């Protein structure tokens, strides 16, 4: 461990010196070269980026900046005047698995800001490190550049194929905020696919959770067999590879996990620039934890390196989602700025990043009536996000011009929020415990399909701790008042103190309906050492997971009067017709029958006394028959009798 820490600090030292060096150099070069700040210390990346840019027309090259500028300006005018969709949609900037050239690793950072329907602000950070290396086949990887060594060692030691871990504080309010880019349940969630070379998966899983617990300063070591399940269908690998035997999958949640600064700091340390430069300077815990929702995650998976998929590289994606509550009563206009949200402004990109961008979602306001973004940008970008075509203003931090004359970027938006109405997301779910008393109860899961005319199937996964004994024969699935028979059910009953219940179902949700899944349970009486220190708080049951392919909003759009080329609008486009979505319900807090823990001593004493004295003598009274006995003779008489017996005379 010590050696590990040493190597890490050495790496950090090197990185820091690199950063300093690059900053110094860029400062030297800026008067001469005006906007040539990227990767000065790394000439390869410059050539790399030019190559890359050649492939992506939307990313503006520095040399052509003047022309490009004009072009985007023009299109923007066009947008304002004619209300047509933004041009050049054929080139999405999201998720380009383009070839990264010579250096085998690559780092990208981006921040998406979306003003939410409810008047809140959603900020989503994504940091992606790609590394073309092979952790698996026994070769020892020892030279780390951008990829964090601690995670690299975890991958190779435990033969991890895919690892997804998220720490979330708060519940994503789908009805007010719409869909998140990356959903996560409250508390901690961990799911891992192991390589099929692993022989003892459970042992490896146990070690892995303990190691991750140390890396992220979280209570992941509380993951044991009682809260681990192997879902058969809900969690498929997200990276390449075709092994889908769920023996190699482990899934666990800790709904009670509290996420705070001590989890954020190790997470930030995994970034190549730490929180020294780039977007990560915004990640100040005093602001991030002063929000309505906070979620941080790490996803590791193998991805294709190029479109032919000849070689694979490892992708480490660190995401952080946060929703700020900007509620100001009585004011119609709301405003925010980077400084107001994060108490920092941006001055530079991470020098190690090949791309560093900020996107501001302006879809809801194509005319610029509701928003006012300053400084204005000339770049627009379009992408399909969660089945919806969104338009973004784009700020490229790798270009000096973004920072303007004050050399710092403080995005500023004023807009009129339409607070109040609830959204009607296509798919959302809620869950609650019904009934009263401490003996039985009923778990209700409601799934809403708000699509006006299309039904779709969803996979519902429930993992319930053993101390709620599910009566699986009471399982009912109803939609629109009729029985809705699931087409697939996978149920693994619990074993007391060993493993939880696992219930997976494939349910078809009819259009415009609510589907209700109910199952009754009995509350177990725990042994007295099994209660938590605060038993009257209740016991947590983790979120259910609903995974589904949802018809996209674009495909739902039946408004054919919109102005678009006629040839494009007859058949609905297959690629866009549905998208994958995962919805988590609320965790449950269930009260179990709890003894009065101040009383056991009294109770033990009292019961023992009652049993010993009361029961004993009452039993005697009832079962024995009493006879009057001659009073026993006195001592003198007894002595006399003994003497008489010895003499052979009959006793007195």
């Amino acid at each position, binding site marked *: 461990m010590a050696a590990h820490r040493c190597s890490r600090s050495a790496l950090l030292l090197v990185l820091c010196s690199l950063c300093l060096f690059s900053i110094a150099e860029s400062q030297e070069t800026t008067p001469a070269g005006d906007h040539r700040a990227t990767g000065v210390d790394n000439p390869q990346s410059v050539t790399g980026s030019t190559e890359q840019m050649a492939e992506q027309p939307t990313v503006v090259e520095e040399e052509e900046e003047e022309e490009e500028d004009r072009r985007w300006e023009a299109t923007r005018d066009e947008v304002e005047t004619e209300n047509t969709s933004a041009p050049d949609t054929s080139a999405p900037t999201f998720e380009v698995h383009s070839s990264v050239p010579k250096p085998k690793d690559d780092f990208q950072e981006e921040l998406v800001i979306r003003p939410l329907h409810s008047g809140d602000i959603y900020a989503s950070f994504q940091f992606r490190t790609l590394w073309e290396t092979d952790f698996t086949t026994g070769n020892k990887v020892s030279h780390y550049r951008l990829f964090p060594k601690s995670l690299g060692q975890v991958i190779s030691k435990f033969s991890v194929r895919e690892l997804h871990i998220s720490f979330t*504080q*708060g*519940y994503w*309010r789908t*009805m*007010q905020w719409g869909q998140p880019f990356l959903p996560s349940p*409250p*508390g901690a969630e961990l799911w891992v696919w192991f390589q099929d070379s692993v022989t003892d998966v459970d042992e490896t899983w146990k070690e892995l959770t303990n190691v991750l617990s140390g890396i992220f300063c979280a209570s992941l070591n509380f993951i044991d067999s009682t809260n681990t399940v192997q879902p058969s269908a809900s969690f498929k690998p997200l990276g390449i590879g075709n092994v889908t035997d769920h023996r190699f999958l482990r899934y666990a949640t800790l*709904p009670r996990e509290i996420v705070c600064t001590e989890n954020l700091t190790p997470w930030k340390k995994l970034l190549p620039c730490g929180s020294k430069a780039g977007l990560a300077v915004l990640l100040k815990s005093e602001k991030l*934890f*002063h*929000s*309505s*929702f*906070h979620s941080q995650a790490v996803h590791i998976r193998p991805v294709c390196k190029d479109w032919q998929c000849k070689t694979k590289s490892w992708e480490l994606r660190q995401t952080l989602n946060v929703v700020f*509550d900007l*509620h100001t*009563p009585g004011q119609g206009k709301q405003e925010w700025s980077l400084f107001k949200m994060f108490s920092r402004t941006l001055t530079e990109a991470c020098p190690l990043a090949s791309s560093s961008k900020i996107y501001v979602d302006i879809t809801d306001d194509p005319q610029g009536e509701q928003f006012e973004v300053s400084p204005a940008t000339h770049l627009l970008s379009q992408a399909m996000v969660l089945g919806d075509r969104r338009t973004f203003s784009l700020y490229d931090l790798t270009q000096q011009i973004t920072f303007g004359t004050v050399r710092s970027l403080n995005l500023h938006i004023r807009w009129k929020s339409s*607070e*109040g*109405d*609830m959204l009607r997301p296509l798919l959302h779910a*809620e869950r*609650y*415990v*019904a*009934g*009263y*008393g*401490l003996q039985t109860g*009923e778990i*209700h899961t409601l799934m809403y399909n708000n699509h006006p005319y299309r039904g779709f199937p969803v996979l519902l996964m429930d993992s319930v701790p053993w101390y709620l004994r599910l009566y699986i024969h009471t399982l009912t699935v109803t939609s629109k008042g009729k029985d809705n028979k699931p087409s697939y059910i996978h149920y693994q009953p619990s074993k007391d103190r060993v493993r939880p219940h696992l219930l997976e179902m494939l349910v078809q949700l009819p259009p415009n309906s609510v589907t209700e899944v109910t199952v009754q349970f009995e509350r177990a009486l725990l042994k007295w050492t099994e209660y938590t220190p*605060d*038993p*009257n*708080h*209740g016991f*947590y049951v983790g979120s259910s997971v609903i995974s589904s392919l949802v018809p996209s909003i674009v495909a739902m759009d039946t408004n054919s009067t919109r102005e678009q080329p006629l040839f494009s609008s007859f058949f609905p486009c297959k690629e866009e017709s549905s998208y994958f979505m995962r919805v988590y319900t*609320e*965790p*449950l*807090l*269930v*009260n179990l029958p*709890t003894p*009065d823990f101040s009383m056991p001593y009294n109770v033990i004493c009292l019961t023992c006394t009652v049993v010993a*004295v*009361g029961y*004993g*003598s*009452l039993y*005697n*009274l009832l079962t*024995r*028959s*009493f006879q*009057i006995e001659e009073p026993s003779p006195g001592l003198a008489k007894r002595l006399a009798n003994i003497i008489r017996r010895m003499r052979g005379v009959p006793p007195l």
Partner: protein
Amino acid sequence: MGLLSDPNRRRALIGLLTRLNAPICVVCYMAGVAWFMGLAFEPFTLRTYMSENAMGSTMVEERFPAGERALATGREFAAHKKKTGGMPVDWLVKTMQSRGLEVFTQRFSRRLPFPDEDKERYMVKGTNVYGILRAPRAPRTEALVLSAPCTAGDHNNQAVGLLLGLAQYFRNQVYWAKDIIFLVNEHDLIGMQAWLEGYHHTNTTGMDWSPLQGRGGSIQAALSLELSSDVVTSLDLVLEGLNGQLPNLDLANLFYAFCQKIGVLCTTQGKLQRNDWDSVSGYSHAVQTMMLMAMKQASGRPWGDHGLFLRYHIEAATIKGINSFRQYKTDATTVGRLLEGMYRKLNNLLERLHQSYFFYLMSSLSHFVSIGYYMPAFGLLGVILLLRALDLWVQLASPPPRTEDGVVDAEQVSSPGVLSVLTPLVISHLTGAALYTLPIHFQEMAVEHFPVSETEAVVLTAIAVYTAGLALPHNTNRLLTGQGTEQGWKVLKLVAVLYLAVLLGCTALINFSLGFILALTLVPVAAFVTPNVPKVLSAFVLVVLSPACTLLFSVFFFQELQEMPVSFLDGWMLYLSVISQGILDHALYGSLVYPLVALLVYPCWLLFWNILFWK
């Protein structure tokens, strides 16, 4: 126990108990009553103290500033209420939304078994509006509730205004760890019942309600607010809930602590606390407070909207603003600050309130007696029944040739025949069942044949069945078995006395006050009734001490305690309405007092009536 296993000593002991049975019973009865009266004497009671550490040591600041604005909102609410002639649902939804809450509505409808003349309702249709303030970074597992009933007329507008004002203020605070649900319920208890049933998805009373759309997890505590004037002189805390359930004492302690801190006069049972416990008037004041609490608890009905929460193990209380002629007035800002403080402390709770007592009686807000102290009062009454049973047992055992060890042969005792005991038991229970079912089922027929309203029909049918029951059992008994034997009534009385002991014991465990009040009147009856006492006088005493007359006296006594004495005619009308309310409480909220009295207590009393007329 060695005492009992020695036959000689046992005989001596039993001899003593049978010989001194009557005096011991009298002493026990008086000791029981004296013990109960002593409970209110301050040196015998405990001072209240906060047991919950999470609420005790945490200091909170109360900064709610907007009492005036809240009152203005209340006036606006009143105007909209008048305009729509009921709950202004749209206005409430809009107002709550503008305060940044997630707002939902719930519709409900209920047809009462018979028209409620007190509140003038029969077909009830209404809407509950509630807004949820989502706590930042909380996973929707815990919630607190603040409710205000929207009542017809000019009542409670200030409460709704203050609720909305608090919602607005709470929305801007960052420290919430639990969701807070602001609920405005229509048709007071019926709306509350609908909301709670919807929230927990249960249906115990056959009400129609639309399912709830938004929830906040398990509710930890709730307060209901009743405020009908802009300024108040004191705040009254109402604790008694359905079936005599009480919230955890810590909730009362919390209210008292904040009243002390902020300097608001606080009362319980509408009685201010006095410091002169050593004077007669001070003591009688404390006794009155405690008796009021006992009588309210014994009634088994919810005395505020909070009462229905208790079924779901949610600690809840109602806070009532009282505006009397006192000089010192408290404005809405102060009341708001008090509520803010209470909610901040409830917000700090790590576990449900469980540290303090659930079974207690309060002689003032600062003094209480717990179950360990008041149970002996009931125990002393209960022991009378056991002594009488022992006496009868010995009497039954002794006259025939008795066996040596005192164990009585079963055949000899039951020689009067099982039938002679079983018949009155069955008949009196059938009468009880008739008392339980007939009033509601026969109301239509009664209305057709007599010039009375439905409510009167129900109540009068109940009284008629009750009186008819007096004539029934002994007549049939005589018809069936001819003359009753001496043995017969003794066996019957033994059964009846033990039955009563078990019945009262169980009742007292659940609802001490009800058990104690029933014991006060029924135990003397059970103790002295034999066929050999003067018939007319005994019959009169028996009727006077019957459950129905107990209720009548309780009504007058309750009015007396509340310092609102009534004339006999008004008292009679009140008595009739109390009976109808009792039946309604059972049908609407599941109160158990009516079925308990009709199905168990009344038949048990009939057995004693039967014994009186045995020959």
